[in-house]
């Protein structure tokens, strides 16, 4: 089915396909990504155990670091970029994020209300005692 790629190959990449870069440039990309990922991981472990920062901010800091980690993975390893050849990948990612946001957010919201309106039996018993 090789003759079906009518759009020039450089503008129509499947996820995981590489653009035509030299080997050196690609290795540099991966090394930078690896370094950033390791740095973020190390920072997370460090923050979790330290008392250098205000304690209640630690969960927020970990979430920020985790999101940054995702970003590093997307850009350096999964090659999600803003180039025109990447529209499908970016749209797929956006659609996935939207669905995850709707389902997870909706679930948290719904279950919260359900729990508030209909607490489990043992809690009802406790409030009645």
């Amino acid at each position: 089915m090789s003759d079906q790629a009518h759009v020039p190959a450089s503008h129509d990449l499947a996820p995981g396909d590489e653009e035509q870069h030299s080997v050196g440039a690609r290795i540099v990309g991966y090394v930078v990504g690896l370094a950033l990922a390791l740095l973020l991981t190390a920072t997370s472990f460090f923050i979790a155990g330290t008392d250098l920062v205000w304690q209640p901010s630690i969960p927020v800091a970990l979430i920020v670091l985790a999101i940054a980690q995702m970003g590093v993975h997307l850009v350096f390893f999964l090659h999600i970029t803003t180039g025109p050849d990447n529209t499908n990948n970016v749209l797929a990612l956006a659609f996935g994020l939207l669905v995850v946001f709707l389902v997870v957010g909706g679930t948290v919201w719904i279950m919260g209300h359900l729990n508030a309106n209909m607490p489990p039996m043992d809690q009802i018993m406790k409030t009645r005692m």
Partner: protein
Amino acid sequence: MLGKLDWSAIPFDQPIPLIAGAIVLVAILAVLIWVVVKGHLPYLWHEWITSVDHKRIGVMYILLASVMLLRGGSDAIMMRVQQAIAYQSNGFLPPEHYNQIFSAHGTIMIFFVAMPFVIGLMNLIVPLQLGVRDVAFPTLNSVGFWLTATGALLVNLSLVIGEFARTGWLAFPPLSGLSYSPGVGVDYYAWSLQISGVGTLVAGINLVTTVLKLRTKGMNYLRMPMFCWTTLASNLLIVAAFPILTATLAMLLLDRYLGFHFFTNEAGGNVMMFMNLIWAWGHPEVYILVLPAFGIFSEVVSTFSGKALFGYRSMVLATMAICVISFMVWLHHFFTMGAGPDVNAIFGIASMIIAVPTGVKIYNWLFTMYGGRIRFATPMLWAVGFMVTFIIGGLTGVLVAVPPADFMLHNSMFLVAHFHNVIIGGVLFGAFAGFEYWFPKAFGFRLDERWGKLAFWFTFLGFYVTFLPLYIAGMLGMTRRLQHYDVAAWRPWMFIAAFGMLILSIGVICQIMQLVVSIRNREALRDRTGDPWDGRSLEWATSSPPPVFNFAFHPDVRGEDAYWDMKSRAQQQSLEHEAPEYQDIEMPRNSPTGFICAFFATIMGFALIWHIWWMVILGGIGAFATFVVFAWRDHDEYVIPAAEVARIDRVNLEERRSLVSMAGAL
């Protein structure tokens, strides 16, 4: 050695499933013996079972759906008869059997009739409409089909070995938990859905990739036929929603097999989480089913009105809007279960909003018909019947989207009538329209119009006679899933509904007759031009049935309604490709991977249901080994030489030329 399996699994004391099972077994054996004796086995194996041709796989999907429609339909007949006679009596079905029947009816109709029917039509037609030679992942496609067939097989196996779930089609815990359903019924349900769910996911990935990545020259997104758009939207929903179903059922299975407490009443489990998750899949699922049907109606209405689709871009927008909003409405399935006014209001409003893009579509179809030269061939009858029926179903849907009204109607026969109204009126009518419309493309001859119209009218009338009484029974307070009842006021409506079922069954018989009569008269009904309906999209640009490579040349698309455009140009100029230069075509090789994978998946599923652990391991290893063998293959394509392509294509071209010159002479 055999886990929970012993002779008590066979229901010797229940004549109905035993006799039904015996008849099916004898029928299957008879067909098998006939196939072997007549020497058709090599043909079946090489041309169908191992085929990775999207058209063949599509046909097999539709065949599976049709067979399962008969099974689900017999369940429906039994339920209608039971409710007609079970007034102050037990009827003819004992409660535990009746519960299995309504559970099996819902499960089969959604997962093994509606799903394979629409996926089959998408497989069959979308690559043709896009002007390409195959789907993105041909062998994966075959795996997907055979895994779906595995699920169907397991569900049917439960008829004679063990039992099916008695929990309704979504198996809500705690009823489906181990303490209230200790038998194998829920395990049959869950494992067959897990296995066929993998098949559906695979089909979804394949079709999304096909639409996004394989389109012929000039086929921009906004030149794609509407059916391709709805296929894209529906399969995006499959890819996004089916993992939720898999995860939810996996948690239920962990509860049942390994003593987890996701959905139990003790140890911190929460049954409402199951309710929430299953409907987060369940609502997109109804749009997965109905969106392709909308696409089919768009094609049919525009072809038989002789006009381009009215408001093509608004239709695209409406489709994609439904695709997103379908993920924002799932709570309306459990308004009454305590989420409170804030949550209910938001989800109620979202449910009403999703009716807007659907309404846009209805108006677009009406305006497509307006001023057109309408031909009321059978597919068009189904389309018009759909519009009337679906509007009624949609309106009752908006009614139950109002939370206070839903508190009155929840779980009543009104609801049963509503969702049959939209699923039969929407999905099933769409599937039948697509079946009638594309049958000539798949097999090279048209279906008999007289029997087709009879089938339509009986089904259409039968539908109303069956389901309008259920609306009324629901208003009179009848709840769903009643094995017997004591309220005299409901009884007349149950009688009428049972009578309606009789009319519906005549419709089904007409459809079977149509197939028989058409196959007998196939020479008279032969479609030599490849374009029996004066079609507008590219599937009609090739012969009927299409050659294995679909198109000798990739069609060059210059606008919407690609084939209509080509035909109008061809009538002015001489036909293009006067002396075309044919080239070799590479096509994917057939592969038994799908069939063997599904064979081992069946063994594994059956063993998991009956706790036969050594067999589980055997099945798992077998399926994995099949995958490894396929992954290590050396050659996966074969070449059709240019001379062969030329020979096949010239026949088609001659027929087409004579058609165009005839039209020119007129």
